[in-house]
């Protein structure tokens, strides 16, 4: 399954890709566009991405999670393009035999995704203006992870 999508995220479909008869716990995180995300009322966020790297980096995050929580399965989707307030921009699902691992794997994947995925947001305000909204990584860069 591709991680990047240009359409609304199918949350149920995502859950289906991770669940299985031996996995008793499934945790889903969904991140949505908030009206109060910016300096003024936000109408939408325009997401842009380095799509090939987004796929490659999320593959790595999934592999790291599988290694740390054996038996777990992680999948995710990130929407790019214009996402209106209230709609989902990112979703991560993690399933594991027991719930503690499902929570941990899901949390790991979304935290790493926020830090490492090459995605950018431009906030579109209700008054029609727009502004880039950037994270706060130090300019020194992201230390590469050894696979």
């Amino acid at each position: 399954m591709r991680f990047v999508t240009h359409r609304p995220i199918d949350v149920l479909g995502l859950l289906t890709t991770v669940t299985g008869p031996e996995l008793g716990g499934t945790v889903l995180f969904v991140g949505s566009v908030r009206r109060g995300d910016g300096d003024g009322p936000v109408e939408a966020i325009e997401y842009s991405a380095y799509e090939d790297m987004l796929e490659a980096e999320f593959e790595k995050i999934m592999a790291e999670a599988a290694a740390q929580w054996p038996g777990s399965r992680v999948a995710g989707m990130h929407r790019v393009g214009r996402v209106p307030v209230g709609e989902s921009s990112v979703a991560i699902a993690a399933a594991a035999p027991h719930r503690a691992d499902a929570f941990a794997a899901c949390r790991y994947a979304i935290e790493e995704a926020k830090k490492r995925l090459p995605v950018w947001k431009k906030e579109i305000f209700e008054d029609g203006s727009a502004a880039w909204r950037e994270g706060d990584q130090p300019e020194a860069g992201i230390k590469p992870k050894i696979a």
Partner: protein
Amino acid sequence: MHLPKALSSATTVTVTVRAFARYAEILGLEETKLELAEPATVGDAVKLLRKSVPNGHLLPERPLVAVNLEHVLVEAPLRNGDELALLPPLAGG
């Protein structure tokens, strides 16, 4: 768009540079080729872009960068054919 050679060195590497989001706006380009004297690092490429592209000085000296889809530090070497990406601070999700 092709930028001028950095140096008239005998051996050079040519890399593809991609810029995203705000950096693409600053530089007025999403993709270009860059030729650098060997041995070259990501930092050398950034230095050249800051000097030779209009508004290039608005790039940070140590931006987030990736080579061939992997996060690297600016000290990383560049080899012929590499894809170097200039990444504004990430803001996924």
